[in-house]
């Protein structure tokens, strides 16, 4: 068991190094440098800046230094856009914000999505189902850039229930978490519903029913774990996305989270920052995927107990 875990860990670290290397190369292929401005800087100034950040060294040397810094010291290097800040520092202040909003959003998405999905399957063919499906359609089709302002308009400006933006008290977290959660929740509901529909007709559920289990028991104890397979598959990337933060949500609600750096850093050609945030995302994705595989094995065991 421990050997297996170690092997998984090693694989994951290798994967992260591959991602880091790829991003290292890709960002440098981008046209335009980090010090380009509307005003063209004289070559001497550009050269001095490049020398300061060691961007003038041969690319392999740069890569080696950067890799050593990363692997040995856990240091992602300086950012080019924000003088006197390091990538580590920026991630350290912004990631906690994203994690808080993201985990709240994830909980909300599951809390809304799963029950709706199960009910949608059980209520199949009833009018309630049609309403539910319409709601899910709305949920997946309305993008966050519409949903966010709408939530602000209704719940903050209109009803005055929540603050319009900023990151101060727990009340500031509700609307952004909702905005982040609803599309994911609707997606979960849709996947859970089809998963459930498939399972409800399967042999082992019929066996369970035949054994005299109530419909409720059959659904919750036997069908649900299997029906969740598509949700579990979808959840890895979706949850990672929620946890590192969404640019749109952060902009609308003025949150000092990490999501915006996925856009800013690439636009600014802030090489180290791009790599930094991508590595954070990849790490979370790898961990969640591993968890999903464990969850799948557990769910499978329960199925086998049929």
């Amino acid at each position, binding site marked *: 068991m421990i050997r297996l875990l170690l092997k998984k860990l090693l694989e994951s670290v290798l994967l992260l190094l591959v991602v880091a290397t790829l991003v290292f190369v890709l960002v440098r292929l981008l046209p335009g440098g980090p010090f380009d401005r509307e005003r063209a800087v004289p070559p001497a*100034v550009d050269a001095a800046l490049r020398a300061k950040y060691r961007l003038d060294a041969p690319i392999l040397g740069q890569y080696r230094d950067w890799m050593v810094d990363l692997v040995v010291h856990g240091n992602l290097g300086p950012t080019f856009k924000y003088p006197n800040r390091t990538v580590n520092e920026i991630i350290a202040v912004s990631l906690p914000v994203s994690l808080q909003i993201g985990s709240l959003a994830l909980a909300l998405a599951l809390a809304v999505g799963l029950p709706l999905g199960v009910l949608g399957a059980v209520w199949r063919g009833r009018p309630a189902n049609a309403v539910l499906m319409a709601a899910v359609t709305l949920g997946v089709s309305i993008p966050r850039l519409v949903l966010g302002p709408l939530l602000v308009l209704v719940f903050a400006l209109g009803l005055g229930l929540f603050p*319009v*933006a*900023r990151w101060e008290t727990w009340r500031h977290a509700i609307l952004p978490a909702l905005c982040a959660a609803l599309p994911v929740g609707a997606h979960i509901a849709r996947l859970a519903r089809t998963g459930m529909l498939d399972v409800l007709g399967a042999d082992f559920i019929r066996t369970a029913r035949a054994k005299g289990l109530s419909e409720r028991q059959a659904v919750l104890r036997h069908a649900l774990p299997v029906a969740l397979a598509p949700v579990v598959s979808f959840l890895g990337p979706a949850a990672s996305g929620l946890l590192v933060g969404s640019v749109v949500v952060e902009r609308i609600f*003025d949150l000092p989270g990490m999501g915006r750096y996925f856009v800013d850093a690439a636009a600014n050609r802030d090489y180290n920052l791009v790599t930094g945030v991508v590595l954070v995302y990849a790490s979370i994705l790898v961990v969640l995927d591993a968890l999903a595989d464990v969850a799948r094995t557990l769910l499978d065991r329960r199925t086998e107990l049929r």
Partner: protein
Amino acid sequence: MFEGLSAFGPEGGKLVQGVALRWEQSSDNRVFRFHLRPEARWSDGARVTAHDFVYAWKRVLDPAFASPAAEHLFILRNGEAFHRGDTDAAALGVRALDDLTLEVELERPTPYFIQLTAMPVTFPVRRDVVESFERQGRPEQWARPGNIVVNGPYTLDTWRFRYEITMKRNPYYWDHDALRVHRIVWMAIEDRHTAMNLYKTGELDWTGDNGSLPVDYLGLLEKKRDFRRSPVLTTYWYDLNTRKAPLDDERVRHALDLAVDKRTLAHTVARGGIPATHFVPESIGGGYADIVTEEQAAGIDPFALPRDGFDPERARALFREAGYEVVTDESGEVRTSGFPSLELLFEGSLDSRQFAVAVQDMWRRHLGIMVELRSEEWRVMLQDLRAGRFQIARSGWAADYDHPHTFLSTFLARSPTNTTGWSDPEFEALVERAAATADAHQSIRLYRRAEERAVRGACRIPFYFHTRPTLTKPWVEGLSPSGMGIHLIRWLSAEGNGAPLPPARPFPPPGKIGGELP
């Protein structure tokens, strides 16, 4: 937080005394001597001396420090050479004659130098503070709350990165008694709508200063009491690549300019720009604004044109002159035959898209040509511009300092910002003469003549001068607009906290050094 030799005053950005009380200059615009006020103090009580300026300017130019703003101090004697590492710091044209006297020698006559003394690039820095953190191996820490030592009216209190900065009064500021506000909170809000909403709910007292307001709501907001609009030293223009056909023909370039209705574009698409028939914003300093007012009063402003230069008839005539067949059919539709394809390049943002669409439609309507639109990510576009891979490109210029030279120098053939390929010896000669002329009035007149050459060359189509819409709560006073996005918090006050401010002391006119070289 910091204060330069001079400072922007509360009225129209006119310069007032900063750390310097008065200055002298040589008649050839090359040697300046500043006399500092003896009572100026840093926020830890130490005296502000001429050495602090010398250190700061050398630091900006130090190639190891690699400041992106180094270029602005290339005007110092040996500034560029020092930055390249060709000379040592001793040869640099800035010296402290004593603790309170700073002497500056410039590489060549620079009419806007005095404007630079109010800009951040010339602010003083405390050497002992910076160096003590450098010795600890944590150079970035000197500018953090608790560590930073400033000489301006307010000092850094807290700093939450890209979220919020708070400032409190600097108790040692020489004009401390004139400060009226205790704490200032700056919120870094990226979204215009969010800023407007926070203003609506009372969390902001002032917004719009650097993010502007949501364009769609301007019509509504304009009717509010809190709304203000002030000119900004930024011009929106399109670059025309004069190296490639059909834009190598001056007549075609002029026709494109004449066929756009700038008044409509500025008012309805840009929502509140000032239509521009030339390149330098009319509110700019250095004496330019005064000359514009003078010329307009006398009716001799060369850039005052009927309908802001919109003249489709003449545009079509120029097209015909250039050899294209332009016909207007019975339904009033204009068709031009034989015109090569043209492409308009812009960055993908929504504002640029809207503007490009409107311009495209005007050219189609009045000239009968269909210009293709193409958007690119901003830095990709920048590369294409500098490599000359474009025909028409959305561009513009924001003033680096409060003087027309910042705009007109972008038309010089050697300027890396001039992507149009246009060069004109007469223009260059005029700018050179203007820069070397010590008399401000005389100098600006020469700059105006140079600008006329640039307009005639039509390598850029000026559309409008930007304005900045802001919302300010009625109890906020003393917020004077700055054309360059510099926050003038020194004059800030809120209703009911303290006596009205004494009038600001203007910078006295310079004394003469009589041209001697030290």
